């Protein structure tokens, strides 16, 4: 077993900020990421073998990310890439798959910054090849400099659509339309909230103008009803929706497109905090069941901190501030910082964090998914992709008495597949809530079991042999 002072799980904005801060305190720091490059989704880097002629075309985040990565790539931070934290092996002891090996890492303090993933909202045809999440489209363009083929439709709700559309355009994609379920008047009504961050508002406006200039259509107050195609997407049915997200009858129309990118917001990756035993609370707007934490980002488990999207969807500014805050608190507990150091650092971080959180709360209030989007899912539409369980299966199980996500899983297998419900559990809980009239949280948090992501049996078996050799 390897030991360290501070282990940081995830190297997105929160993890990078935490690692830089933690390293300046003199603590031994291990920064883990399951991917081959640092940066996470937001600061996504291209493979090391790529030659970059013009970094400006990779977007602002790429260059900012480069700066963070330069700062973290000192000998003070031990970088563990291709390292998946798949389980917990004891108090603040992480079970890790590093490359093709399994090992344990024991840390005095753990900062969990595992980020978020795209929230799936099923509709007929959403499992067809050609329907991808906006996050996946962004990964293609940021990481591989590839763009989806043909006419691209972006659909969903929230400002994330703008940078993705912009990046796709930069990469040479042909955007047919950007479809936003919030109405234009709804956007104007709530736009006061954006005044807290005029820079972000201007950034969005800039993207919007460029997207319009490319000839792409902008549709407010619309959403996707269906993806059409036999072997792959060839068209999308879109329709106008009211403020509650309900389809306005007769407004449906078909658009011929080749790729559909869905952007319905994000869900926090809370699997590692769950396995560590951190208590949670329910906050529907911020992404469901979330680990509770104090003003220093420490969870209910002493020595375990949470930062960034894992603590609730808040965006990169919140993540950067929370990452720093968690690292300062961890280093302080560790006796590596004096009280006056801590006070001055906190004074610098907290105002920024509060402003960023206010802006994040505005976005969540404005663009959160509406129950109507789930209400209209037809019974024969698959909601659990791993086990091919339909919305009807889930509704019938709930009507038959299933009163928790676990009871639905036992009856239908929804959530039993390789993703362990990461993709379907928010949909299943919402469907269950709608059909039963009970609140979403009444169905409980999804049960999280190791491994967080699949691990090869052979990698674990090698550990057994290792144990035998030692004993």
């Amino acid at each position: 077993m390897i030991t360290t002072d501070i282990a940081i799980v995830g190297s997105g904005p929160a993890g990078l900020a935490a690692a830089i801060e933690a390293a300046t305190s003199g603590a031994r720091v291990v920064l883990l990421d399951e991917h081959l490059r640092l940066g996470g989704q937001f600061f996504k880097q291209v493979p090391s073998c790529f030659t970059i002629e013009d970094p400006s075309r990779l977007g602002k985040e790429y260059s900012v990310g480069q700066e963070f990565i330069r700062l973290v790539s000192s000998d003070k931070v031990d970088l563990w890439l291709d390292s998946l934290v798949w389980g917990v092996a004891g108090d603040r002891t992480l079970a890790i798959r590093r490359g093709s090996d399994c090992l344990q890492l024991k840390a005095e303090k753990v900062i969990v910054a595992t980020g978020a993933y795209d929230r799936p909202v099923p509709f007929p045809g959403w499992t067809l090849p050609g329907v991808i999440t906006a996050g996946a489209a962004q990964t293609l363009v940021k990481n591989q400099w590839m763009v989806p083929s043909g006419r691209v439709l972006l659909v969903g709700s929230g400002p994330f659509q703008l940078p993705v559309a912009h990046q796709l355009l930069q990469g040479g994609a042909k955007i047919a339309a950007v479809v936003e379920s919030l109405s234009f008047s709804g956007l104007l009504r709530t736009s006061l909230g954006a005044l807290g961050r005029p820079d972000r508002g201007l950034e969005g406006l800039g993207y919007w103008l460029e997207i319009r200039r490319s000839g792409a259509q902008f549709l407010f107050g619309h959403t996707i009803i269906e993806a059409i195609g036999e072997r792959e997407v060839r068209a999308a049915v879109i329709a106008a929706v009211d403020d509650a997200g309900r389809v306005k009858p007769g407004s449906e129309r078909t658009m011929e497109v080749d790729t559909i990118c869905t952007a319905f917001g994000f869900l926090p990756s809370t699997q590692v905090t769950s396995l560590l035993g951190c208590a949670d609370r329910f906050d529907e707007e911020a992404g469901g069941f979330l680990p509770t934490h104090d003003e220093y980002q420490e969870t209910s488990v002493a020595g375990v901190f949470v930062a960034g999207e894992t603590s609730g969807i808040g965006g990169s500014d919140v993540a950067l501030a929370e990452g720093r805050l968690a690292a300062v608190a961890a280093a302080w507990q560790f006796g590596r910082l004096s009280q006056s150091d801590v006070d001055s650092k906190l004074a610098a971080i907290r105002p920024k964090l509060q402003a960023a959180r206010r802006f994040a709360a505005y976005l969540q209030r404005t663009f959160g998914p509406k129950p109507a989007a789930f209400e209209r899912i037809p019974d024969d539409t698959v909601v659990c992709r791993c086990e091919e369980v339909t919305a009807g299966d889930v509704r019938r199980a709930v009507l038959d008495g299933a009163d928790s996500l676990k009871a639905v899983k036992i009856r239908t297998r929804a959530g039993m597949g390789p993703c362990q419900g990461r993709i379907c559990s928010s949909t299943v809980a919402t469907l269950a809530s709608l059909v039963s009239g009970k609140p979403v949280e009444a169905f409980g948090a999804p049960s999280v079991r190791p491994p967080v992501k699949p691990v090869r049996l052979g990698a674990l078996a090698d550990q057994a042999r290792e144990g035998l050799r030692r004993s």
Partner: protein
Amino acid sequence: MKLPTADAVVVGGGIIGSAAAYYLAKAGFSVALVERKGIASGTSSACADGLLLQTKAPGAKLAMARASIRIYQQLGEELGCDLEFRNEGGMITASNETELNYVRGLVERLRGEGIPVELLSGKAAKELQPALCSDLLASTYCPLDCHLNPLRVSIGFVGAAKRLGASLYVGTEVTAIDVQHGRVAGVLTTRGRIDTGVVVNAAGVWASHIARMVGQELTVIPRRGQILVTEAVRPMIRGRIIGARYLMSKLGKAAPSEENKSSYSSGMIFGQQASGNFIVGATREFVGEDTSTTYEAVTDLAGQMVQLVPALANVQIIRIFAGLRPATPDGAPVIKRFSGPDGFVAAAGHEGDGICLAPITGRVVAGIVSGRIHDYHQFELVADP
């Protein structure tokens, strides 16, 4: 608040309680099934899925297992749901001389009980199951062993019981049992009182708590079993395979070197489900009601698994969990009418045999409540409807 009166209240919605509720309803009793969490939310959803004769101690348990498997053959049709029942046989593998000697004795004992078990050479075993490793010494083969999907059995029993008029109270905890003049008079729950003359204690791992409510001592100890589940893959294994090491531990013949202070032992009991997933068990540990999984156990099970089926090295594990088996001091389930109070019936302590023995247990309970039999040693009296 008062809930509708019932002839019998079954406490516990695991596979045993579900079976008891169904057979009681089928026998014409009005039944209330009270479950603290959800149907099959405890042991019955964290277990292996075999209906194995070879793993049963000779005697009453083996005889009950045979009767139960006979019931299972028709049960899917009777309950109106696909139980994923498969009669694909079972094997007990021996990897060293100690295990081989044990397996030889086992085959003899089982044959003595009239169970058709063969002893195959390692080579013959590999011909039957090409995915097995090539350095196997020997293996048994019993064509009568079966497997199914235990979740579907519990859900199927409860659904059929409801159709026969049984009431289901999930998320409902039993807080007390009212005894008057030496007889069960009612069950108090978090949702209200149910007047009844019969309580069936099918609370599994938690059966001791329920028994204590009427002043009875019923020793059921939770024994943890950690299990791995792999991704769904193409069919590689038919039937169920048990490493002799597992059975030696289960039937009390484990070599001392394999035991440590925390009572930990482990062995292979595995197979492939209808869905294509491998279920790989298990450990055997006394750690109270702790259902967490341990790094040591997981790597131990993975190591044994890859040794036995090398091709699984490249298959992904998608889930690791632990279940608590309701163990009794003598390894036998407690299915009987208590001497007092009247109307208190136990159906608990099946440890790892609950899936296999559920249908016959349900019938025995119905037989006891009807007053036809006293305990499961007379199960033949109710075995065939």
